[in-house]
């Protein structure tokens, strides 16, 4: 590990990432403070703010509970039981990620009520989802994969010796699970939980469609219904405070977690347990989950697709597809390019500066996209008017927001690529740039591709940044799904929803295939230094956590 300070040039991306997020937020604050003091007092102490806060927190806690109830049993079934086929379980745990929340909300709304899909096919008048339970259901079904990926990776890599020791000391299987396995899962759960909390806090589309008022829903309502933007700016600041509190809470809870082995030894894959009489119950659980998260949404989309009668729908779809793919491709390249130096510093250097540099990527990810988009509007109008409503600004927003997702896979690749090969290259006379191009980049190419795929998928699905920052006339899949769904034009929304779901599914499968090729490497036989607690959430939940030494 190179303890020298990173080259100043390598620090530039981190500085860009931090300034790119903080500067607009400063202008957001300036805009919020720009109102008259009496108006400010009225806005800040409005009782509705407390209601929004309570609603937001209740929903976040509810979704965390719901996702845990789904992800933990599913991860256990996939990693620790004899249930087959295992690959199918993993697919079920990941594929809902392909469906954006607003598409899920669209599908559940269009499936319900008189005239909905369920009514048309079965005659059953399924009550329309709405309010807290509708928002909770949709957000749970389409964010639980973040938790599943973390828990699944942890369960697959846990050293069974601890569980064996507990059993030898007389603990029952249930006691062993509760006292050994669950504590071991805590860091994985915390990381996944933070991602889900950020998604729920930042979501405005599902809560708006479900008519459940949260901070994000209120920001969007102000944006669409109020003639000035002071209150929306204040609500955005409030949302930032809540998000910041969530980040601090996760960091505090993660601080005391240290997992390490006390002695070297061979590692074995964890044992699998036969389900026995519990198998039928497991299959019912899987069937219900697959039905709710995949079959009903996709079935509804296909149903309404058949009702689309607009002859121009398909050419409009093609235009939106091109717009979405174009933006996603450019953003994937820029984000991965920016992520590489950050990941390089994190993996090749140590010390506070390296940690701070790497953490810079998470600033954009943690910022709620609606607040970030509003901030960028205020910022560009005042500081950089030529950037306003341009493709460049949209790409910059995507890059800053999704940078954290790109850092994870690149860093994992860099950690796998031993620095010794780079040192050998230098010894053989290659310059630093040559070593980078001929040794390091080929080694990390798989990680770069996974990063690009992640960002591509995320940009394809992204809605608030797209809605607020798109150039005039710029059509995307997400924007069309949203506007048609908001207007209850379910048939018109169906082609775009299907295109999004299929694109997401293909990319998700690609990511899974690449992850499968990464065989866990046995740790070196000599005892390494005790692992430090993870200080920040992993950018990509699907990346297996490093095996605790």
């Amino acid at each position, binding site marked *: 590990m190179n303890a020298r300070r990173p080259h100043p040039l390598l620090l530039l991306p981190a500085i860009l990432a931090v300034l790119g997020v903080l500067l607009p937020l400063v202008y957001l604050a300036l805009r919020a403070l720009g109102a008259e003091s009496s108006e400010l007092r009225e806005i800040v102490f*409005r*009782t*509705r703010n407390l*209601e929004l806060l309570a609603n937001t927190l209740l929903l976040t806690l509810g979704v965390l509970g719901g996702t845990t109830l789904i992800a933990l049993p599913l991860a256990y079934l996939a990693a620790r039981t004899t249930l087959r086929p295992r690959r199918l379980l993993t697919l079920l745990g990941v594929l809902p990620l392909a469906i954006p929340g607003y598409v899920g909300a669209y599908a559940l709304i269009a499936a*319900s*009520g*008189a*005239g*909905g899909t369920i009514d048309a096919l079965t005659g059953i*008048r399924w009550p*329309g989802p*709405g309010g807290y339970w509708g928002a909770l259901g949709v957000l749970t079904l389409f964010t639980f994969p973040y938790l599943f990926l973390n828990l699944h990776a942890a369960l697959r890599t846990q050293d069974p010796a601890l569980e064996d020791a507990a059993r030898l000391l007389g603990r029952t299987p249930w006691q062993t699970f509760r006292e050994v396995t669950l504590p071991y899962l805590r860091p994985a759960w915390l990381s996944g939980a933070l991602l889900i909390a950020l998604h729920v806090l930042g979501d405005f589309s599902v809560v*708006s469609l479900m*008519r459940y008022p949260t901070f994000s829903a209120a920001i969007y*309502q*102000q*944006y*669409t*219904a*109020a*003639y*000035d*933007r002071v*209150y929306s700016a204040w609500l955005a600041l409030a949302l930032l405070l809540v998000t910041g509190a969530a980040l601090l809470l996760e960091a505090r809870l993660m601080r005391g977690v240290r997992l390490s082995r006390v002695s070297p030894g061979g590692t074995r894959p964890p044992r699998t347990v036969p389900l026995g009489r519990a198998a039928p119950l497991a299959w019912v659980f899987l069937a219900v989950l697959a039905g709710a998260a995949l079959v009903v949404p996709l079935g509804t989309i296909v149903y309404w697709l058949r009702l689309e009668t607009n002859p121009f729908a398909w050419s409009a779809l093609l235009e939106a597809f*091109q717009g979405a*793919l*174009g933006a996603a*491709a*450019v953003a994937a*390249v820029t984000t991965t390019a920016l992520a590489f130096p950050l990941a390089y510093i994190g993996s090749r250097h140590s010390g506070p500066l390296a940690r701070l540099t790497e953490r810079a990527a998470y600033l954009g990810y943690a910022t709620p996209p609606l607040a970030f988009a509003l901030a960028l*509007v*205020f910022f560009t*109008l005042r500081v950089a*008017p030529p950037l*306003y*409503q341009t*493709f460049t600004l949209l790409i910059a927003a995507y890059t800053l927001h999704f940078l954290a997702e790109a850092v994870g896979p690149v860093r994992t690749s860099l950690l796998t690529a031993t620095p010794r090969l780079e040192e050998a290259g230098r010894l053989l006379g290659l310059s630093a740039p040559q070593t980078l191009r001929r040794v390091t980049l080929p080694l990390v190419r798989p990680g770069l591709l996974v990063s*690009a795929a992640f960002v591509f998928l995320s940009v394809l699905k992204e809605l608030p940044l797209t809605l607020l920052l798109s150039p*005039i*006339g710029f059509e995307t899949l997400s924007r069309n799904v949203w*506007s048609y769904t*908001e*207007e*209850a*034009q379910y048939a018109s929304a169906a082609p775009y929803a299907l295109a999004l779901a299929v694109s997401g599914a293909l990319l998700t499968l690609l990511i899974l295939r690449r992850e499968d090729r990464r065989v866990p490497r046995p740790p070196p036989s000599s005892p390494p230094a005790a692992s430090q607690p993870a200080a920040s959430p992993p950018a990509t939940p699907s990346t297996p956590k490093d095996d605790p030494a």
Partner: protein
Amino acid sequence: MKRTLLAVTALLLAGTSLAQTKTLTVYSGRAKTFVDPVVQQFERQTGIKVNVRYGTDAQLVAALREEGSKSPADVYWGNSVGALGELAEEGKFTKLGTALTRNVSSDYLPDDRTWLPTTVRFRTLAYNTGKIKPEQLPDSILDLPKMTSLKGRIGWTVSYPSFQDFLAAMISKYGEATTRQWIEGMKALQPKDYKTSNVGMLEAMRAGEIDVALTNHYYIQRVNRLSYPIDTYFFKNGDIGNLGNATGAAILKTSKNTASAARFLSALVAKDAQTFFLSVNFEYPVIGNILQPTTMLPYSDVSKRSPRIDPTVLPKNIDKAQKLLRDAGLL
């Protein structure tokens, strides 16, 4: 990946070449489905490329305020008198010449000729014919809060510009106290808020979620075409619940394409566009008699039901209406 990059670059360059032709930037508070065919027709006839930014009236008013002199907009096409009036009062529009205004009905044309009405619509109450008889409904919208049997069964759209104009008109006619009372009374009936989506609201009525809805007349006309069990209820003549409102278009002072903008406005009040607005959107024209669908009341009939509210009072009261909604925790 390299080939993808090249393809993307080619796409972007192709997009750039469009900037060489004449272009017009329109901010439209009207939804795309209601106006896009007219825009397409204009592009075909004139060769002028029209870039439309779609959003709600409030969203675009706020955007134009934030953008100030840097705004890229040439034309503002508003969904309500209130929004157009706000911007006009702030001096953002140029005065229109008589060539544009002479054929347009004076009912909604502002005295200072800063914007051109393009269609007229009326507030109504939609009701589910399978569940509600019109005789059960009150003569005045002011009495709607008394209908406790409709608790949880009413839909409204507090974010929608026409609804806010309606509140502004109520403030103008009856005062803030009465309007606040009405809002609180309605709130007690636990209405379902469909934000800006009247289509969503009527779909919800079809799905059985609600039985009555405060909406604009043409949304009911459109779903009648689909054989939904929904019909139109007008309150007594002159009631505020029947308020007439107009869409309109204006040219921004900051526009550098005023000639193209004037052509666009002229096209909006030409017979082709007006016929489209009437026959497809079911909105009333502003250029006098055009053959109307038989399901719609003649303009002269429906305009009698509407109270006479001077269009200039709506913008003065929009802010008050929004404040009342905020105080009630609805906005």
